[in-house]
C-alpha cells in the first residue's frame, strides 16, 4: 500500500513538474482564445433563430444578411472599432491623451495589430471584442428581417457594432470609462453596453423602417406572421445559451498577468474581485429563472426560450456578486415581463420580428437597474477606500447613456436612409419574397409551399 502511495506521489510530482513547463501567460491566452469560438456559437444561434423566424420566401435572404453582418464586423472592428474602445473613454470625444492610448494599443496601421513576438495577447483580446461587436449586429439583424435592404443593413450594422456599442463600452465597460469613474456604473455582463445598445439601436431603425407588409391591419390590429420553422428558432436560442458561457468568460480578467488587476484573484473588467464559480452559479440560475418566468405566464415556446436570454440579461450587470437564488428571482421577473412588454411595443405599431427590442433593450434596462437596486454599496473599481460605489442613481445614469448610445445613431442614420429611399425593400419584392427576387438558390428544393401574409 505504502509503495503504491509513493508511486502515486511520484507520478503527481512528475505531472506537476511537467505542468510547470507551461508558462502562465499561455494558459491566460488560451482562456481568452477559447471564448472566441464559443461566441461564434452565439452567432450561429442567432442565424438559426432568425432563419427560423422568417417566412419560407425570405429564409435564405435572412441568413445571408446575418452572415454578412458577421463578415463586415471583423474588418471594420479591426479598422476602427478596437481603436474606439481604447480612445473614447473620457466622453463624447477623445482627448489627446486617450487618443494616444488608442494608438498605443489598437493602431490598425501599427505593429501591435499583427503577428508580433513581443505582443502575444492583443489579437486574442481583439478577437473576443470583435465577437461582442458581432453579437450586437446579430441582435439587431433579427428585428429587421424580411423588409430591409441588405446593403443599408450592413452600413447600420457597422455603425452599431464597430462604433455605437464600442463608445458605450469605452464609457461604461472599462476601468477608466467616465461612467465608471464618476458614477460607479457597474455592468459586468454587458446588459447595458451590449444588450441595451443593440436593442434600442434596433428600435430607432424599426421606427423608420416600418412593419413588414401585412403585419398590421388598417384598424391597427396586428397579424401573426409566424416564421416557417419554430423548432429551428428554439434550437438557435439554445445555441445562444451555449455561446453565452464564452461571452461571460470573456468579461473576466485572469490573475497574475502583466495586464491583470490582481496577482492571485480573478477580477471583472473593472478590477473588482470575483470567481468563475460565481459565473457558473449565476449563468445557470439566471437561465433557469428566465425560462420558468416566461413559461409560467405564456406557455409559448418562443417566449419561453427567449426567457432564457432575458434571464441571463436580467442578472448580467450584477452577475459577478449576486446571490444565486436572488439571481434566479431577478431572472424570473425578466422572463415574466417579456410577453407583456412585447405586446405593448406591438400595440405602438412597432414590428419587431424576433422580440429583440424587448429581450435586449427593455430587459437590458431591468438588468442594469437591478444591479443598482440589489447590489448598491459595492466598490465599482479596484483600489483603496474612496473609489466610487455602485448605486441605483449611477445605474440609472448609465442606463440613460446606453439608451442614447443605441437609439440616437440607429434613428438618425436610418432616417437619412429612409429619406434617400435606400432603407426599405419595395412592396412588390416583399410580396414576392426576397429569396425568389434576389437569391440564386432555393432553401427547400423539395417544394414546400411558402405561405402568404394576410395582406396578400
Amino acid at each position, binding site marked *: 500500500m505504502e509503495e503504491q502511495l509513493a508511486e502515486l506521489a511520484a507520478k503527481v510530482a512528475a505531472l506537476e513538474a511537467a505542468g510547470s513547463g507551461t508558462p502562465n501567460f499561455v494558459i491566460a491566452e488560451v482562456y481568452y482564445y477559447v471564448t472566441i469560438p464559443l461566441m461564434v456559437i452565439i452567432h450561429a444561434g442567432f442565424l438559426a433563430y432568425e432563419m427560423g423566424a422568417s417566412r419560407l420566401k425570405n429564409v435564405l435572404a435572412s441568413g445571408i444578411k446575418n452572415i454578412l453582418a458577421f463578415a463586415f464586423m471583423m474588418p471594420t472592428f479591426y479598422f476602427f472599432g478596437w481603436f474606439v474602445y481604447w480612445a473614447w473613454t473620457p466622453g463624447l470625444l477623445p482627448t489627446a491623451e486617450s487618443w494616444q492610448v488608442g494608438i498605443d494599443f489598437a493602431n490598425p496601421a501599427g*505593429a501591435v495589430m499583427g503577428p508580433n513576438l513581443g505582443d502575444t495577447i492583443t489579437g486574442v483580446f481583439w478577437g473576443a471584442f470583435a465577437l461582442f461587436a458581432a453579437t450586437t449586429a446579430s441582435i439587431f439583424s433579427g428585428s429587421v428581417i424580411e423588409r430591409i435592404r441588405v446593403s443599408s443593413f450592413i452600413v447600420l450594422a457597422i455603425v452599431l457594432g464597430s462604433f455605437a456599442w464600442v463608445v458605450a463600452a469605452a464609457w461604461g465597460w472599462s476601468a477608466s470609462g467616465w461612467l465608471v469613474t464618476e458614477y460607479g456604473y457597474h455592468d459586468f455582463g454587458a446588459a447595458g453596453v451590449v444588450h441595451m445598445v443593440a436593442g434600442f439601436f434596433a428600435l430607432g431603425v424599426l421606427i423608420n423602417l416600418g412593419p413588414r407588409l401585412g403585419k398590421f391591419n388598417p384598424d391597427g390590429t396586428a397579424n401573426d406572421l409566424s416564421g416557417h420553422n419554430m423548432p429551428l428558432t428554439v434550437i438557435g436560442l439554445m445555441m445562444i445559451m451555449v455561446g453565452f458561457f464564452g461571452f461571460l468568460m470573456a468579461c473576466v480578467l485572469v490573475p497574475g498577468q502583466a495586464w491583470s488587476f490582481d496577482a492571485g484573484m480573478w477580477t471583472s473588467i473593472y478590477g473588482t474581485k470575483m470567481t468563475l464559480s460565481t459565473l457558473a452559479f449565476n449563468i445557470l440560475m439566471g437561465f433557469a429563472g428566465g425560462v420558468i418566468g416566461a413559461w409560467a405566464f405564456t406557455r409559448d415556446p418562443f417566449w419561453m426560450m427567449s426567457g432564457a436570454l432575458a434571464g441571463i440579461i436580467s442578472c448580467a450587470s450584477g452577475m459577478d456578486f449576486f446571490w444565486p437564488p436572488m439571481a434566479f428571482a431577478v431572472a424570473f421577473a425578466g422572463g415574466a415581463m417579456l410577453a407583456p412588454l412585447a405586446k405593448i411595443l406591438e400595440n405602438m405599431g412597432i414590428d419587431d420580428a424576433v422580440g429583440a427590442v424587448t429581450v435586449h433593450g427593455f430587459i437590458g434596462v431591468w438588468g442594469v437597474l437591478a444591479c443598482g437596486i440589489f447590489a448598491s454599496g459595492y466598490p465599482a473599481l479596484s483600489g483603496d477606500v474612496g473609489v466610487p460605489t455602485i448605486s441605483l442613481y449611477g445605474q440609472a445614469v448609465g442606463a440613460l447613456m446606453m439608451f442614447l448610445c443605441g437609439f440616437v445613431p440607429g434613428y438618425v442614420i436610418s432616417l437619412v436612409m429612409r429619406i434617400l429611399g435606400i432603407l426599405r425593400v419595395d412592396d412588390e419584392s416583399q410580396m414576392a419574397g426576397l429569396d425568389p427576387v434576389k437569391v440564386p438558390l432555393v432553401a427547400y428544393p423539395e417544394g414546400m409551399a411558402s405561405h402568404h401574409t394576410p395582406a396578400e
Partner: protein
Amino acid sequence: MFGSPLKEASWNSAEGAIYNGATVLAEGAEAPLWFATSEGIWLIIAMALCVLALLIGHGHESAAYRRERDRARGASQ
C-alpha cells in the same frame, strides 16, 4: 510591401513584428507617415475592398428589386 522582415534567414534572432511586409527602419531613420508604410497601404486596400463590395452588393440588390417591380407591373397590365 511584402516579404520577410527578418534580419537574417533564421528564426534564432527573430523578435518583435514578424508579419510579412513589416516596416523596418534603418537606425536613426525618421518614421514615414502611416499611409506611406506597407501596413498603412494594406490597411487602405482592405478598407477599399470593403467599400467596393458594399457598392457592388448595393447595385446587385437594386437591380433585383427593379426587375421584380417591372415584372409585377407588367403582369398587372
